[in-house]
């Protein structure tokens, strides 16, 4: 192994992006939410933006629970990124950012969810049948409940690792490994219901039982590729210097690989079952995604979200070289963005989104909600050490000089 080129770049300080995120977030998301109040198209843009960053936070939460469940060595250098990405700060901000979607549902004026209109439900037997579950009040109660559970889990885990860093008390770690596995189960159940409530119900006649897993896998891909991007592009800077070894990037690359395959598996399963059944209630999802350019987007996703990362990550040298893995992670993130757009936008009536051409408010809302997310991430990073010091496994010399 060649000696890594040591640069004298200053230590990594992720929290310094906070003010930028705050300004961009408050202006962008504020403007988008204000326009969304009266303009259905802008509210669609807003929901799309929220989907991307909201699901990404959930992906971080899943990885955080996973790390404290399996306690693998691979998770230690990146654990603080998982923690910040799913921090109570991020989750509270994302919950507040969802209010522009929730309030119209409660007041019966939502342009996004047709099941929230009493007059539509009155004339629709299918929606009447679903009404005991899918009604504005119960939906809002669930929204609050999901976030309380997530914030509870994330708050406990983050506090516990910070405490162990300070005191070195091993009992903290034992407690985490008792909370994290049930937390992981709770995460999967709540994330499935949340995806069903917030995104599947955009097309309320349609349903798919794999939708929850599919979304959780997609969320995991987003969170992991952001993590990989952060650590690989800063591998020569403190505190990552010497920790981002080929072995670690191989582990992270294999995880990306596994999730890519899982994404392909769940996507295909859903499509294949719906295609084989060929029943109108089920096929509506794909019928809505066959108009004009949307079919092209779907085909591009098969290639870009599955085949390209699959073959790229198959090669060991992609995973062993940090800069190569960074490129693949960046590509996956862009594909997640495209897939998010493809999942949300065609749900709305064809009159408002006939083609996949992005519109002004899509950009504003995306940058705005992204800014809010960054603000939460940086707020959480402020009080954290990027590398947990409680686990001596992190500092074991690997003896090969790389």
């Amino acid at each position, binding site marked *: 192994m060649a000696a890594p080129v040591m640069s004298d770049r200053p230590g990594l300080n992720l929290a310094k992006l906070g003010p930028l995120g705050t300004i961009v977030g408050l202006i962008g998301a504020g403007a988008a939410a204000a326009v969304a109040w009266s303009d259905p198209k802008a509210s669609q843009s807003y929901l799309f933006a929220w989907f991307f960053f909201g699901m990404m936070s959930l992906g971080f939460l899943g990885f955080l629970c996973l790390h404290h469940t399996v306690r693998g060595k691979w998770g230690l250098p990146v654990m603080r990124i998982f923690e910040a990405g799913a921090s109570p700060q991020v989750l509270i901000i994302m919950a507040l950012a969802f209010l522009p979607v929730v309030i119209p549902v409660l007041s019966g004026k939502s342009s996004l969810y047709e099941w929230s209109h009493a007059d539509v439900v009155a004339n629709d037997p299918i929606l009447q049948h679903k009404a005991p579950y899918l009604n504005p009040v119960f939906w809002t109660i669930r929204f609050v409940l999901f976030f309380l559970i997530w914030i509870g889990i994330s708050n406990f885990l983050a506090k516990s690792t910070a405490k162990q860093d300070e005191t070195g008390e091993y009992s903290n770690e034992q407690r985490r490994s008792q909370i994290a596995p049930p937390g992981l189960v709770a995460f999967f159940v709540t994330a499935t219901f949340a995806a069903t409530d917030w995104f599947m119900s955009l097309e309320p006649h349609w349903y798919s039982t794999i939708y929850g897993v599919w979304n959780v896998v997609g969320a995991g891909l987003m969170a992991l590729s952001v993590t990989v991007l952060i650590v690989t592009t800063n591998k020569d800077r403190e505190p990552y210097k010497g920790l981002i070894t080929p072995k670690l990037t191989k582990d992270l690359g294999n995880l990306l690989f596994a999730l890519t395959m899982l994404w392909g598996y769940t996507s*295909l399963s859903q*499509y*294949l079952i719906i*295609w*084989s059944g*060929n029943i109108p209630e089920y096929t509506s999802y794909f019928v809505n995604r066959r108009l004009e350019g949307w079919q092209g987007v779907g085909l591009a996703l098969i290639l870009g979200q599955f085949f390209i990362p699959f073959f790229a990550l*198959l090669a*060991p040298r992609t995973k062993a070289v940090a800069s190569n893995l960074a490129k693949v992670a960046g590509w996956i993130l862009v594909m997640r963005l495209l897939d998010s757009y493809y999942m949300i936008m065609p749900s709305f009536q064809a009159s408002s989104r006939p083609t996949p051409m992005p519109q002004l408010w899509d950009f504003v809302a995306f940058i705005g909600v992204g800014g809010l997310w960054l603000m939460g991430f940086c707020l959480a990073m402020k009080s954290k050490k990027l590398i947990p010091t409680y686990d001596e496994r992190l500092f074991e010399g690997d*003896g*090969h000089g790389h």
Partner: protein
Amino acid sequence: MAGYSRHKDAPYAIVAEYGTPDEILKAANTLREAGYKKVESYTPFPVHGMDEAIGYKDQRIPWIVFMGGLTGAVLGFSLQYYTAVWDYPLNIGGRPLMSIPSMIPVTFECTILFASIGAVVGMLGMNMLPQPYHPIFNTPNFRRCSQDRFFLAVEVNDPKFDDVETKALLESTSPLNVAKVEG
């Protein structure tokens, strides 16, 4: 790795015995850094990092698996194409004869099947297994290799092999025992 078609009682290797995975790993690193190439380890369970320590860089198995998978994909797909489109076309629910979604599961399964057959057969073939006789079993105490002892063999066909030097080097890695093994 290689076949041993030498006559009886020819020297085979110098074998060192260790009590812990850390010791054998350290010894294997020492040997690799000294330039030895024909080093084999025999351990009761997989020792993490051992393949790098003995300088194992063989990429043939991954390629065999990959080619196996590719063959399976092509065969699985062509089988379905031949039966459903060419040989016995059936109208199923008005779908096109060449319905790719319905062909994916079988194509996928064939990919996995051929890739795993490639992995197993390739591994057995390249290790020359099954092998009814192997000189390593002449090592004293080798029974415990499947229990709690770790063995490191430097084979005589290593270009750096030297009766005295190799033995001295192995002895410097604090083994429990070093033996010259003949086959």
